[in-house]
């Protein structure tokens, strides 16, 4: 398959690249709309398709934030995180469909099942990890029924609707669905209900082996990874080292605390690995910032050529989409757009030509 790789970026730390080092209870829930809008506009010019809108008690509601940002931008899409269990699937679909009409389809969803029981209880969600995945599957089944635009009944373990319908259709039929997670349950859910599974990276051969069963179901695999790209590998390593310098013991405690409270297998395993093993999983895959910034700080570190080669290796391993973070995002995104993306696109052209 020669379809082009697709690239997305997380909006979660726009305007404050150290956000993830702060105790969640002290994070600002009012991030700068200007910085977010600037990052969205930058993304539009850097070949980024959508911005991930995270969900959690520390930030504004992703669907409403996407509404505001979407109406201020032209082409960028929004990947809105949703946790089943907090909202009726019918009302969620109605909200999402409404937004799709306003943005002419520039939205997709990232179904997450939550990773911290303490936070979920604050939303009134008391289900355990495995039940949350079963519930997410039911939630998506109801949403899909609504997108078919014909009244239907559904009786599940967690949801029951009768003659369910909403009249506002999703612009273009139905949204693309992403699922985040690294557990067996997440793989299962993605196989059944998602277009693409987001997971944390590992060595390309590990990704290839673990992805194969999912790829056979027709669901794609995408990697959530931070980028530290520089003209040379030495510069990239220096940047990586510099990026963790400002952090203190206090920051370490924040994430140790988080890892202990989380029941998400992916977050915990990336974190444990970072704490107990060598910080380099491959010559370019680095976990050195994870103890300070959490699992999503697992990073590809290297020269533009290194990283373009890495992305291509992941492509060979079956990965089709990437969700990036950077610190600061806007500068890393610029380097991606100017340096790495052209290398990938050139290689895709060669590859397509060779295949023809």
């Amino acid at each position: 398959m020669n379809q082009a790789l697709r690239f997305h970026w997380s909006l979660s730390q726009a305007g404050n690249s150290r956000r993830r080092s702060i105790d969640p209870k002290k994070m600002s829930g009012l991030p700068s709309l200007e910085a977010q809008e600037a990052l969205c506009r930058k993304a539009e010019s850097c070949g980024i398709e959508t911005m991930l809108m995270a969900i959690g008690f520390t930030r504004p509601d992703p669907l409403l934030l996407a509404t505001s940002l979407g109406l201020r931008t032209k082409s960028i899409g929004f990947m809105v995180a949703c946790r089943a269990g907090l909202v009726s699937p019918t009302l969620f679909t109605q909200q999402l469909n409404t937004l799709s009409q306003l943005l002419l389809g520039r939205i997709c969803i990232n179904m997450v099942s939550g990773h911290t029981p303490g936070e979920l209880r604050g939303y009134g969600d008391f289900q355990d990890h495995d039940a949350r995945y079963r519930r997410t599957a039911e939630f998506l089944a109801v949403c899909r029924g609504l997108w078919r635009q014909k009244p239907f009944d559904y009786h599940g373990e967690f949801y029951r609707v009768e003659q369910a319908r909403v009249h506002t259709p999703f612009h273009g039929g139905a949204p693309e669905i992403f699922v985040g997670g690294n557990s067996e349950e997440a793989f299962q859910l993605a196989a059944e209900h998602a277009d693409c599974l987001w997971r944390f990276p590992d060595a390309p051969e590990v990704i290839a082996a673990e992805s194969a069963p999912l790829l056979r179901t027709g669901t794609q695999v995408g990697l959530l990874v931070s980028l530290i790209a520089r003209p040379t590998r030495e510069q990239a390593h220096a940047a990586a080292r510099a990026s963790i310098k400002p952090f203190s013991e206090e920051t370490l405690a924040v994430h140790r605390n988080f890892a202990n409270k989380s029941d998400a297998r992916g977050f915990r395993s990336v974190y444990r690995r970072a704490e107990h093993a060598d910080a380099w999983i491959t010559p370019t895959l680095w976990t050195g910032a994870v103890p300070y910034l959490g699992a999503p700080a697992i990073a590809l570190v290297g020269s533009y050529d290194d990283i373009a080669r890495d992305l291509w290796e992941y492509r060979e391993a079956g990965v089709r989409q990437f969700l990036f973070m950077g610190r600061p995002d806007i500068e890393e995104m610029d380097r991606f757009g100017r340096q790495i993306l052209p290398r990938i696109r050139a290689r895709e052209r060669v590859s397509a030509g060779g295949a023809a």
Partner: protein
Amino acid sequence: MTASFHWRLAEGGENLQRAMRGLRDDPAKALPDLAAQIHFCREAERVGIDALLVDINYAKPAPMVLALALAPHTRRLRFMVAHRPGLMSPTLFVQQVNSFSALAEGRICLNMVVGHSPDEQAYYGDFLEHDPRYARMEEFLEICRGLWETAEPVDYSGRYLQVEGARLNTPFTSPKGRKPQIFLGGNSKQAQQAATAYADCWLRFGEHPQRLASAIAPVLKSGTAVGLRLAVIARPTRAEALDAAARLVDLSRVGDKSEHEHLFVNGSDSVSVQQVYKMAADEWLTPNLWTGAVRTYGPPNVALLGTPDEIAQQIIDFESIGISHFILSGWPKLAEMVYFGEEVLPRVRRLEKKLDPAFPREISHA
């Protein structure tokens, strides 16, 4: 005292015949109509409307999202977003409201409704009966209040809703305060109790002021304001107003109104919907309060009917018994609002200056 005047956001265009064919199922209502709705919002702001009501039901866009899309096109106008508890975690709901406030200068207030159609509730997965829906509303608003009013994490364990350590880092932000104004509607005892305990304003359908006065006295006494949901048919002369009213009803006879009425009333378990239908039998509550449109358009359409002077006086009569909010609608949607704002509202403001500010309080002690 001065009352606040709100209007219902125009949805589904201005085609009267289509609107009459069915209250809810008109496909024209399903899509946002941003250009027309932005114009409607700007006109509302220009003529002195405080907030636009954005309804919730399965046949329309989601009100929270639609309102946020409209907000940037105005500067002062507020949006009264309808919401039904039971469809969303109270924590997530407060997060949405607070996010709205941060993204639109706090210009949101809430119209909390329990829903009135068991069929429609089932679309959303809500199978609770009438009375428990109000009990759940109170639990929902108790949690919301906790999130708005206390800095500490909120614990709550009720019959319908539980949260543990609920907290949000996005606060409600508005020049007017740390929590949104809450309007809560319904004629039942349960609605009144929920409004008294949790709302800033109890909303009712239109009735004769004298009947209304005794019903609202305990609520006013508790410190909760009272508002009315009414339609407006204002014209330069009474004859023109009557003519406009007749045309609204005559046209409806082209369609099958009895079938529609049957569907709406029998499909509802709302106490107020049933009461207002009974009342519509004798069409005139006062010379300027007409219920003839209720059978065709539903209970929110007890209508203020007459000249600008007559309607202003009728409003003052309501204000005299302590009504301080009016949520209005009319036909044609935009033209009626503009005419009201330009012709009726200035007259109301002049008459308000002569009102005895102590009067509503005396009534409430009677």
